[in-house]
């Protein structure tokens, strides 16, 4: 009788030690798995976070409501009431005149340019369209909502920093002299701003001193090298470095000293430059930009004329200096006064979905690209799905098993791994070059995408068909079904979930492909919405690629928003795949 081993693991028997080792290994495996998943989740969260945050800027657009005089002389001098003639009238000029009417004090050319820059270039066209549709308006005075420019919209969103209000206690007295205004307050309300300026100077000087210290370190080092140098040339070079760096250091220190002196200089005032945040005063409906301040007074430029006198006033600082933003102080003042008059409106940006591409970010939308994607996907699906599914059925159910079919199978598997840009080259050379399909059309894009998706669909469908157990086929044959009937009445319905999943995943991949479509030319600037498969078009991923290249800052938000739309499509397609799979899954 051999010795019995106990099941209860206690003590340090070899069994217990093995058990401990095994448990540790299992724990490590679990830890790796959780670590990997966590890493992936973090990456996903980071991606979503950055994209969604950026896209928030494209959520809204801004309109400025202004009174317009639709003088017949300007629009329809011959009183034809013909929409075409009305459309061709100079509405751009009308828009400019409208703006000047709101701010008549603007005279300088640069200032006028800044004023016109408050509205979008397309605002005039929108007015023209409206009037041409409603010709009875000619000759009337109306109020019209003009689309704000991208810069104005960005400011209103707060992308250029907020306007920070300072508390002020005293009463303000203003004395005007043309465009210059002198202000003084009964209490030292500008002290904080002054202190801020001084602090900035000190910060700058500290920075300069740091740089000087670095130069000094260089001087010491080169002096050492000069001493240690063996030949005359090296010594001379080192000496030169010493001299240069000493000079730089001294210059920096001089600058720093100057700044510190300015900062220290008593209670006397400071000049405000473009490199420091701007100070604005809003009083009696007007805006003044301060150019020099002392503790309780200041001198400034009138941006928006005051309408009378008032002792109520507000003092603002901008977050960013004028150098660091595209919206000027004048524009800020105009926008703020329009806002105070209730003429500024921010609404949801439906235009993003209804407009097609444009050079101006505030006018740009994804409609053209979305329709292009739709047509392309339609062509892809109608080509790839039937061909793929029937090929799979033939290869699995009917084809004889010989070397030739093995060869075909190997090639299909390889095609699934080919880089997508090769398909783009194929499209360019063969489909567009040889068959003459119009370039940049969804037809060409669809054919290329179909070729790319076909191997995926074939492989997934074959796997789904092969997964049907042979007992079903035997049962069908036993009842007297022919091979066709067996394949189509029994095998195919059972393999539909797998086929659908494979197809939708293939389509989802095709949806996000950019490189091959760029190769076949779907990257042009298309403004019209494509209405068929032979019209020129672009697709969403390519649109994202183009917009990401543009310099305007407002395009950043729109690029992110387009990416969100694309991701939304992908999630929807994957959810559809899962839903269809669950619904059609049958137990056998």
């Amino acid at each position, binding site marked *: 009788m051999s010795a019995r081993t106990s099941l209860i693991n206690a003590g340090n028997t070899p069994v217990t030690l093995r058990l401990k080792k095994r448990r540790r290994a299992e724990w490590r495996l679990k830890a790796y798995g959780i670590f990997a998943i966590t890493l992936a989740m973090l990456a996903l969260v980071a991606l979503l976070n950055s994209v969604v945050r950026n896209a928030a800027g494209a959520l809204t657009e801004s309109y400025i409501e202004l009174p317009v005089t639709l003088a017949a002389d300007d629009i329809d001098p011959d009183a034809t009431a013909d929409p075409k003639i009305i459309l061709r009238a100079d509405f751009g000029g009308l828009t400019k005149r409208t703006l000047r009417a709101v701010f008549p004090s603007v005279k300088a050319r640069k200032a006028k340019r800044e004023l016109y820059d408050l509205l979008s270039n397309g605002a005039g066209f929108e007015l023209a369209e409206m009037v041409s549709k409603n010709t009875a308006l000619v000759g009337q005075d109306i109020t019209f909502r003009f689309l704000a420019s991208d810069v104005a919209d960005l400011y209103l969103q707060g992308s250029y920093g907020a306007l920070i209000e300072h508390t002020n206690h005293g009463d303000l007295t203003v004395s005007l002299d043309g465009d210059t205004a002198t202000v003084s307050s009964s209490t030292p309300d500008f002290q904080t701003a002054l202190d801020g300026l001084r602090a900035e100077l000190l910060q700058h000087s500290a920075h300069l001193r740091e740089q000087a210290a670095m130069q000094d370190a260089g001087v010491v080092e080169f002096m050492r090298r000069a001493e240690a140098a063996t030949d005359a040339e090296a010594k001379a070079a080192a000496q030169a470095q010493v001299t240069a760096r000493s000079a730089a250091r001294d210059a920096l220190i001089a600058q720093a000293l100057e700044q510190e002196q300015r900062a220290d200089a008593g209670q006397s005032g400071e000049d405000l430059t473009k490199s420091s945040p701007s100070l604005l005063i809003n009083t009696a409906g007007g805006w003044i930009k301060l150019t020099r301040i002392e503790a309780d007074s200041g001198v400034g430029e009138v941006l928006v004329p005051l309408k009378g006198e008032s002792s109520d006033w507000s003092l603002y600082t901008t977050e960013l200096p004028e150098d660091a933003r595209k919206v000027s102080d004048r524009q800020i003042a105009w926008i703020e006064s329009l806002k105070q008059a209730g003429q500024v409106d921010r609404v949801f940006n439906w235009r993003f979905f209804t407009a097609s591409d444009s050079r101006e970010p505030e006018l740009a939308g994804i409609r053209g690209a979305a329709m292009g994607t739709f047509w392309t996907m339609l062509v892809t699906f109608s080509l790839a799905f039937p061909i793929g599914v029937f090929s799979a059925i033939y290869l699995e159910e009917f084809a004889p098993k010989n070397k030739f079919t093995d060869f075909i199978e190997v090639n299909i598997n390889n095609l699934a791994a080919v880089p997508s840009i090769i398909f783009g080259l194929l499209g360019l050379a063969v489909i567009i070059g040889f068959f003459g399909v119009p370039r940049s059309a969804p037809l060409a894009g669809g054919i290329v995408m179909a070729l790319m998706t076909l191997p995926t669909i074939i492989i997934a469908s074959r796997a789904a068909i092969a997964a049907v157990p042979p007992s*079903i086929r035997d*049962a069908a*044959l*036993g*009842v*007297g079904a*022919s091979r066709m009937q067996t394949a189509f009445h*029994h095998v195919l319905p059972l393999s539909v979930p797998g086929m659908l999943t494979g197809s939708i995943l293939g389509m989802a991949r095709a949806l996000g492909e950019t490189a091959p479509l760029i190769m076949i030319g779907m990257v042009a600037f298309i403004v019209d919405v494509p209405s068929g498969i032979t019209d020129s078009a672009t697709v969403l991923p390519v649109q994202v690629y183009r917009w990401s290249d543009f310099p305007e800052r407002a395009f950043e938000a729109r690029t992110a928003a387009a990416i969100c739309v694309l991701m939304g499509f992908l999630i929807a397609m994957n959810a559809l795949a899962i839903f269809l799979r669950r619904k059609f899954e*049958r137990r*056998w």
Partner: protein
Amino acid sequence: MNDMKLAEKTVDQTDIKFSAKDVQVYYGDNHAIKDVNVDILDKTVTAFIGPSGCGKSTFLRCLNRMNDTIDICRVEGNITLDGEDIYDPRVDPVQLRAKVGMVFQKPNPFPKSIYDNVAYGPRIHGLANTKADLDEIVEQSLRNAALWGEAKDRLQEPGTSLSGGQQQRLCIARAIATKPEVLLMDEPCSALDPIATAQVEELIDELRQDFSVVIVTHSMQQAARVSQRTAFFHLGNLVEYGDTPTIFTNPEDPRTESYITGRIG
């Protein structure tokens, strides 16, 4: 006690249904079935017994040309059904399989409703012109398979929702719906529990009033219980073929005796 005599009627089983002469079956180079000569009688249950790999299932599948689906399988010799050679090139295997039904080892109902399972065969062979005809065929088949009572209220439920024994009876109903003349059964009870097995065996006993049944079984006891004629296969040869009571009380060939008494594998 005469096994040939049923409760009410005497059946005439002297007609030969399948006649096999000098049948050889090759799987590639492997000579799986050698020189088999056997006559399957009508309205009789014939059992094929023998150890694993002796070729009984292979021979069974020759009778309805299911071996056609296997590329490397080659059948030589002469097999006739009611005098007609079933391997004649003019014979359509699909038509043959409507006349010779098959039930498999593991119950394999289609993943359709119970009604559609039974109706599929008649539909594709055009046996019913109207819906009423089809309903009639389905009901009759389910009754004959002793499943009507349990299934009549759940005809639209999937066939896979039945228990194992019920599924096998559904497969039997499906096979007899095409009004076959012969029913081939390849170890129909091996996946069932004893009660379900006994129910299926009782069903086979009833079915032999209308069909000729050929059943391949691993269980000699089952062959003894259910069949009137038994054929013993060994290593591809047909060793002995005779009346079941004789084979099980006093077989002629010593190999048969060794197998059924459990002296060889």
